[in-house]
């Protein structure tokens, strides 16, 4: 039996833990404000808010209910539009109405949820760019977005009056949220813990890609839930080693001060990775074992020369992430083994890191080609390089030859140009829906150049590389 709060009341269900939250909301509970647009996490019409207690404080994030197993709702507060409606329109609803931000209305509820999620965010984020970022997972085909941007701006102004501290009390007092939100923490505390999952069943983390691939079989069964296991969560830095639990989400990374310090442009990098509601539920472990040739976080961590911590019946072991893949979707991982964490050495002061990605759409799209680089300098010489790329072969690839060749070379344009030629000898892109093979080769060359132009603007620029 799964138990969670749905809007203002506690619900229990005996549905299979692998069935979808979206279907439970719409068809079991008949809360039809949450819409079905794509069932692939692309359109945001099914956006809900998921709240849980973090260090005693209620925190919410948006999520696509079409990719969320109902098991991942256990013990949480799930908010749909019906749980936001009051006698009067909330300021979020009012802003959308008054700015003409709704036409056909089908995507509208998703925007209401995402913008309410923005209002619930930590204090320092209540600015206009953050409001726009909060709706980066919502597609609207009628308005052209300008009216919705005006609604976001209006909300940003309204939130300027919000004091630091308990956002929920203020949001309730100002009719952003119904009163019952004040009682949610106590109700969550009184809730039964989520049942331990049966072993041997399919394992699901956030489900963001798994439900796109295996929807028909997963929705029928009990699954082994990994997402909320405390032992698989958390980001720590100890003795120069940063360790992230395998169920760390991309959003967790984004909110980690330690990682923001290590990678000053982290927000920029991760903005290229899916959308706000997906980042909140997509996990590192899931990304690695999914073994997509274009997994963004896989490319990111291969370049950090990261190690995987693996647990199994024969004990624990560690391997380098770059050695996880033997071939297309073939892993050095037994079925009864589990990735528990990923760790890497904190990049030293003489190193620089960059991540690049090109997809058909700038945001919320699968990469045509992605690549990351970690480069250590010794004066003007390249001491060590870790370069990865996706979309250029059957697996996310560590570009060994290029890295070896670059070692010890002087950092000048000629070096970068020559390395780009070596790069071409160790990739094997195929032509597919994301681009022709020749285009992907060109893309990787340009993105490789972009690494150096971005990291060493004082030495390398586009004109020198032409």
């Amino acid at each position, binding site marked *: 039996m799964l138990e969670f709060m749905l809007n203002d009341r506690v619900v229990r269900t005996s549905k299979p833990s692998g069935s979808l939250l979206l279907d439970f909301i719409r068809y079991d509970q008949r809360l039809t404000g949450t819409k079905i*647009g794509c069932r692939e996490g692309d359109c945001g019409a099914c956006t809900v808010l998921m709240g849980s207690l973090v260090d005693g404080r209620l925190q919410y994030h948006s999520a696509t209910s079409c990719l969320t197993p109902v098991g991942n709702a256990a013990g949480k507060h799930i908010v749909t539009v019906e749980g936001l409606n009051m006698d009067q329109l909330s300021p979020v*609803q009012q802003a959308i109405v008054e700015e*003409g931000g709704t036409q*056909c*209305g089908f995507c*509208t509820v998703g925007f*209401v949820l995402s913008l309410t999620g923005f209002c619930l965010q930590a204090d320092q984020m209540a600015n206009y760019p953050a409001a726009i970022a909060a709706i980066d997972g919502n597609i609207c*085909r009628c308005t052209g977005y300008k009216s919705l941007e005006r609604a976001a701006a209006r909300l940003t102004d309204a939130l300027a009056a919000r004091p630091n501290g308990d956002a929920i009390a203020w949001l309730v007092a100002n009719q952003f949220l119904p009163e019952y939100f004040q009682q949610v923490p106590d109700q969550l505390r009184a809730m039964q813990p989520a049942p331990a999952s049966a072993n041997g069943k399919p394992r699901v983390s956030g489900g963001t890609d798994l439900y796109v691939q295996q929807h028909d079989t997963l929705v*029928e069964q009990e699954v082994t839930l990994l997402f909320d296991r405390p032992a698989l969560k958390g980001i720590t830095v100890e003795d120069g080693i940063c360790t992230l639990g395998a169920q760390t989400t991309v959003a967790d990374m984004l909110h980690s001060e330690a990682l923001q310090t290590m990678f000053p442009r982290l927000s920029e990098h991760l903005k290229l990775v899916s959308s706000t509601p997906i980042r909140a539920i997509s996990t590192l472990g899931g990304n690695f074992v999914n073994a997509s040739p274009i997994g963004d976080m896989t490319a990111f961590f291969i370049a950090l020369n990261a190690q995987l911590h693996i647990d199994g019946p024969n004990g624990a072991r560690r391997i380098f992430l770059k050695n996880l893949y033997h071939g297309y979707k073939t892993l050095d991982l037994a079925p009864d083994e589990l990735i528990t964490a990923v760790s890497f050495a904190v990049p030293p002061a003489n190193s620089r890191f960059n991540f690049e990605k090109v997809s058909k759409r700038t945001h919320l799209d699968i990469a045509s080609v992605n690549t990351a680089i970690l480069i250590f300098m010794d004066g003007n010489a390249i001491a060590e390089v870790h370069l990865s790329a996706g979309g250029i072969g059957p697996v996310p690839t560590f570009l060994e030859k290029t890295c070896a060749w670059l070692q010890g070379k002087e950092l000048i344009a000629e070096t970068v140009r020559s390395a780009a030629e070596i790069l071409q000898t160790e990739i094997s892109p195929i032509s597919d829906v994301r681009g022709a093979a020749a285009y992907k080769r060109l893309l990787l060359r340009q993105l490789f150049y972009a690494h150096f132009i971005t990291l060493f603007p004082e030495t390398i620029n586009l004109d020198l590389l032409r």
Partner: protein
Amino acid sequence: MKNIDSNGHVRGTSVYLDDIPVIQGTLFGLVFDAPMAHGSIEAVDYSKAEALPGVVRIFTANDIPGENQIGGIVPDEPLFAEGDIHFQGQPIALIVAESEHIAAKARKLIDIRIVEKPVITDPREAQAKGQLIIPPRTFRLGDPAAQWAKCAHVFEGRADSNGQEHLYIETQGAYAVPMENGHIKIHSSTQGPTAVQRTAARVLGVPMHKIEVDVTRLGGGFGGKEDQATPWGVMAALAAGQLKRPVKIALHRLDDMRMTGKRHPYSSDYRIGLSTDGKILAYEVTFYQNAGAAADLSPAVMERTLFHCTNAYFIPHVTATAYSCRTNLPPNTAFRGFGGPQGMFAIEAALAHAAREMGIPKHLLQQKNLLTEGAEFPYGQIAEGVEIGKIWQTLEAKFSIEKTEKAVAAFNNANAQVKKGLPCSPFASAFHLQKHL
């Protein structure tokens, strides 16, 4: 101006097709479609699918009491393919089951054998092989052939504009409910309720008054639900009528994108002649419209392309010819602008070409050739109450195209990796002109 539905929309209380309370005993339909673009069906084995518990019945062309025909303008499109398939995603059968989930499982159990035939996706190839939806049409004004020698500049080129998916966020769907006396009520997410009613009556072989179509609202349409909402409504009505149970079809996004048509891709050849001072003296254009495998609304879309072929300019000598070309793609359909953008794109491409070759800014060529009072369109209408010259001057005074272009050039000189551009185009709508035709 406020959308009167706004409050319901932001509260999530507005009712769309999939939100209609489901009547007890409702069955769910899922379409089985062609797995390839062109071929003849040798055999389809439904036995394994039919044997799956929860599958109630599978409807094919053999189950149609009336006509297996849904073509609105030209009767060239069956509801369910018989014999030959003409595009990937063409409906072949409707699986009706106790749940959508069961229907999806059943679909995987259908075996089909198809002998493949050559596939055409290029409209020029279709035209060369005589594969036309309707005979070509030509609009003429003056005599361009006699003008080329008098032109200081003549430029020829090709302009291609590609397709576009509507992506209405609410996918296609319909919910048919059997009523008294053999009547059927169809809830449909359609822009064309009459098309659904007329076509359902035709396929079911009943008078139109026996079919009621109810449209509360659509979660987006953009032209994509003008003609192409019809098949799902008709299929649901067919199944509901024969099974005497309500039948709902709500397409999965991937099915919708695979089975339905898009904006028409066009490939066009232009020839434009100008005087030394940039006046357009003659224009010839040939449009190859990629209609897809059936007429749908393509003939009307093609006409609108011709109406817009000179956009907001006066050109004294024009020949514009359009071919609606049959290819093995899903039938392309209405989409915001209805062929107009494709017509305007060719003349704008020709002007851009001329401006580049003549070394003068395009906006000067555009301004010089704007419609004037009393000018004649290539379809014979005389322009009255022309305001475009004044509009252009007002905008010029407000935004200064030249100043903005200079700022763009300065930015582009200063930035190697990021570039800007300034698009600028007038637009003449032919929609309000139809009373003259």
